[in-house]
């Protein structure tokens, strides 16, 4: 590794860009297209494993490959699951929009078609003032963060295209004041004509449309984030389209992230006059998130799960910081990458993926060393054999209980996100098992114990799950009936629970069979009956949560499939340069691990420290302005001190106090001190921690960061 001093400024360093190397040809030729499994995953993951004999090495290599394959399979599965879920959620709105598009197109066509001659002449024809209205859909997103809906609009485009429309997906980037109306027109032409044209002229589109389509299908222009477009460019664009709408049956779909008032506020009144608006609403992000959590994380679709801390971290990100689905999916992907990189045993995940768990899919022997297997009671060999199938069973039980709970909570708008988080908590599970979870409200209930992750207020009042269960007691009979029906559906295939749910439904049916003609007395009795049924349902779900809702982290071998390192995930997802770079400077010894700068107390500047680090430590003593003169003097004073080593050598000098005062300066010339000072200031400037002197205050630099 070339160290600092050897790096001279080379030609390449001064070029704006250069080609470092081209893809190595040999590999290009050698690579044969043999399907997905042999992707060029040559990633060597076992840098820490010291394998001595060759067979071991070969084994490792095999394991690595299967880990990578597992990762790939798991991710492909998750990705497609997410896609399906979103597709299903959006299906209704998309169909609605498509219906509206076709209807609008019909309306345009009925108002009169033009012959080719008229249509391609260069000036617009206005036959009727009312006829140049553009049918416009305002699609309201229920999240101000439009990033989630980018994909939605892309999907909408594909959906409409599949129904024959000519679709162009534009965004606010196309409607910038800088490129003006030419910019959006060019990308419109580009997408619809499917070729690049330099001329930005709408008559090109008109003649193309006459030639290729001739009023069979509409042209749909989707603008995904209307709120961020340049107002004047968008208004001009609409005015222009309105002039041509008879020739080109164009339909606008505008994504609105703020309110329905926004279009009126943004667009000029002239442009608004030409719009004939309709409204559509996209789903709420929490609903979508719940659907995704259900499909991806609650039902083990991929042989990959996350632990409680990770779930809590992801939940916090969603609720507190980001609120977007995109970042949630990103977090899941990052988690799965980290998991397969870090967990050497993850090559066996396959067993959980298959529908039928084969006997051969036993966990490998190394798995017994996992911490979760230390307290196994059954014989080890059996545990290995049945480990995968047992785990699958427990996971299925867990997920059906969670989904049953979610059905209960749906009325009260309890999100699966919260339930999921609480259901994963191993501490709560242990508490529940010590007979904590009671249906009756208990004033003596001690507040739950939480660590630093994911606590919420409602839980301090007794836990979301127990609150949800309590709701069952207040359900009216009809709702209870529905609930039991849903439970019946959810628990299908999980025999242990399904039987009990069935039993309860039979009892319910009996109750209903009571003669319809009933006296007042009977009604009361009936109520009593259904109350009892409520009680029973509550008791059932309580029992289910207690016995079957075993969080993944309480299952033996869970390390193989479960990612739990929330800190690592956080570091990879959201870097914190402001804090970390300052810490680098203030605690440089932690990274450099040199013997010379080791001091007992932190932040004591000594001469052997890295110059910039030393300067930044010194800067902490100043206010928001640092006087350059003082700073330089203190820097010079410190670097002139003797290093620790030198001090040891000169131990003979009379008294330590005196030595400190008369510390013999090292031979540091003024020039070199100034040079070091300058370089350190430059480096601090590069990190953005300093602002350079202004003309008004030439002798001061300004500090930018205060505290970490």
């Amino acid at each position, binding site marked *: *590794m*070339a*160290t*600092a*001093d050897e790096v001279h*400024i080379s030609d390449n*360093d*001064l070029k*704006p*860009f250069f*080609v*470092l190397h081209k*893809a190595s040809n040999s590999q*290009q*030729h050698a*690579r044969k*297209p043999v*399907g*997905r499994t042999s992707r060029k*995953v040559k*990633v*060597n*993951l076992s840098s820490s494993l010291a394998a001595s004999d060759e067979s071991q090495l070969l084994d490792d290599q095999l394991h690595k490959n299967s880990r990578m394959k597992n990762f790939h399979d798991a991710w492909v599965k998750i990705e497609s699951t997410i896609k399906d879920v979103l597709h299903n959620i959006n299906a209704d709105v998309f169909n609605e929009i498509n219906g509206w598009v076709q209807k609008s197109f019909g309306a345009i066509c009925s108002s009169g078609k033009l012959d080719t001659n008229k249509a391609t002449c260069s000036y617009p024809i206005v036959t009727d003032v009312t006829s140049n209205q553009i049918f416009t859909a305002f699609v309201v997103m229920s999240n101000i963060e439009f*990033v989630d809906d980018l994909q939605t609009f892309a999907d909408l485009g594909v959906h409409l295209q599949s129904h024959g429309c000519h679709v162009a997906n534009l965004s606010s980037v196309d409607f910038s004041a800088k490129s003006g109306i030419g910019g959006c027109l*060019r990308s419109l032409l580009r997408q619809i004509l499917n070729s*690049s044209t330099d001329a930005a002229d709408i008559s090109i589109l008109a003649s193309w449309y006459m030639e290729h389509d001739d009023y069979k299908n509409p042209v749909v222009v989707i603008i995904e984030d209307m709120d961020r477009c340049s107002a004047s460019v968008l208004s001009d664009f609409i005015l222009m389209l309105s002039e041509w709408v008879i020739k080109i049956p164009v339909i606008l779909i505008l994504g609105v992230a703020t309110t329905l008032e926004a279009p009126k506020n943004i667009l000029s009144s002239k442009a608004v006059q030409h719009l004939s608006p309709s409204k559509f609403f996209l789903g709420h992000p929490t609903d979508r998130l719940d659907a995704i959590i259900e499909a991806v994380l609650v039902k083990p679709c991929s042989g990959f799960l996350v632990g409680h801390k990770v779930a809590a971290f992801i939940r*916090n990100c969603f609720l507190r910081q980001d609120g*977007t689905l*995109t970042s949630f999916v990103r977090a899941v*992907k*990052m988690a799965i990458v980290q998991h397969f*990189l870090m967990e050497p045993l993850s090559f066996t995940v396959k067993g959980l993926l298959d529908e039928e768990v084969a006997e051969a899919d036993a966990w490998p022997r190394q798995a017994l060393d996992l911490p979760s297997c230390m307290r196994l009671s059954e014989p080890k060999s059996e545990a290995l054999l049945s480990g995968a199938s047992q785990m699958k069973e427990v996971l299925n039980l867990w997920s059906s209980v969670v989904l049953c709970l979610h059905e209960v909570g749906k009325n009260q708008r309890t999100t699966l996100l919260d339930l999921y988080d609480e259901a994963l908590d191993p501490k709560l599970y242990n508490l529940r098992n010590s007979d904590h979870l009671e249906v009756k409200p208990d004033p003596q209930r001690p507040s739950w114990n939480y660590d*630093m992750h994911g*606590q919420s207020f409602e839980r301090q009042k007794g836990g979301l799950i127990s609150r949800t269960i309590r709701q069952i007691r207040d359900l009216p009979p009809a709702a209870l009936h529905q609930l039991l029906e849903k439970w019946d559906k959810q628990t299908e295939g999980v025999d242990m629970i399904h039987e009990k749910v069935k039993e309860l439904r039979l009892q319910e049916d009996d109750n209903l069979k009571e003669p319809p003609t009933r006296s007042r007395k009977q009604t009361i009795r009936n109520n009593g009956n259904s109350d009892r049924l409520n009680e029973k349902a509550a008791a059932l779900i309580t029992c289910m949560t207690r016995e079957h809702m075993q969080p993944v982290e309480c299952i033996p071998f869970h390390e193989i499939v479960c990612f739990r390192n929330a800190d690592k995930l956080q*570091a990879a*997802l959201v*870097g914190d*340069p402001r804090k*970390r*770079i300052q810490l680098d400077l203030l605690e*440089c010894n932690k990274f*450099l691990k040199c013997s010379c700068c080791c001091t007992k107390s932190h932040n004591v500047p000594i001469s052997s420290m890295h110059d910039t*680090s030393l300067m930044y430590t010194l800067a902490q003593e100043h*206010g928001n302005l640092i*006087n350059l003169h*003082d700073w*330089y003097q203190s820097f010079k004073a410190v670097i002139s001190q003797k290093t620790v080593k030198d001090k040891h050598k000169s131990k003979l000098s009379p008294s330590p106090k005196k030595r400190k005062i008369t510390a013999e300066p090292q031979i540091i010339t003024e*020039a070199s001190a*100034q*040079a*070091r000072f*300058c*370089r350190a200031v*430059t480096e601090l400037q*590069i*990190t*953005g921690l300093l602002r350079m*002197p202004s003309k008004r205050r030439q*002798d001061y630099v300004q500090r930018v960061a205060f*505290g970490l």
Partner: protein
Amino acid sequence: MEDHDIDEDEFEFSRNYFLAKESGKSGKKSARKLSEIDLVDEQDLRAEVSKIEPKHEKEIASLIDSYKSLYNEWAFELQYGFGLLLYGFGSKKTLIEDFASTALTEYSVIVVNGYLQSINLKHVATAMAEVLWEQLKLQPRSASGGSFKSQQPFNSRSLDDLIAFLDGPHAPENESFVCLVIHNIDGPGLRDSESQHLLARIAACSHVRIVASIDHVNAPLLWDKKMVHVQFNWCWHHVPTFAPYKIEGVFHPLILAHGSASQSVKTATIVLQSLTPNAQNVFKVLAQHQLAHPDDEGMPIDVLFTSCRERFLVSSLVTLNSHLTEFKDHELVKLRRHSDGQDCLYIPLSKDALEKLVQEINQ
């Protein structure tokens, strides 16, 4: 409880800020002047800077070495669609280039030096497209292989076309990637939002992978959620190296240099070398005029224009002005009012320095 922590943090943060403000205002504020230090001559200072004896060389080398064990992890993340963003104190230039040349041999790698003052991203995109095209050509004929034949040269194509090419569909069995390495994606030449949006679009292309470094503590403010989550898809890695910012720091004026506003010959040379030959020649015309007329206040713009047009360096005043703006931005050229009221240009360097500069760029 966490809420509480956050409040505490915020409180701490604002308290620190006001404490700092306070101590700045208090009567004890030092009013010492820089001029009280016996400042060394700028040339000597520059020479001295280049001679600074490195500290902790061994430790820094082993720290950087320790990151080698992460290369595989990085390559894996890169392969699966994440962009790598490396941060932490110290120059990461050598680290990233070492990573790219050892672990990314299967990708073509293009390096962008973001610390330079001006970078033409269209040229970068063109180079990427050319490299990718070569790569695709070499591949065994796939279904899409034939369609690349009738391509017009990349440098005459629009940016949208280039991006569309980079974002082309790829055959699942033979993926070709171009890896874009950007030193200092937060550097002065790339700091504007237009460049960042363009980079984000390039990064989101199916054939492109991105590795970048940042040094500025506020760099994340450059990106919105779409860029961070969808386009760049950053995976952060904290890798402090403590290596000196040699090349990255060259363009910053030395704080103790006399009149930090005046550029030294060295930086001027470097800036000039990064400009086009035409721009260099325009600068030379101005420099020669200044050397020939040392007592003049400067060269009027129209005189410069005529003399440049005679040499076929510029065709219109617009081109000349664009060159001049570039010069002015880098403080190579300044404007002052002539005694007869005309605006005229001069180079803020001494005669010796200017002679040396002209010599340097003539080489």
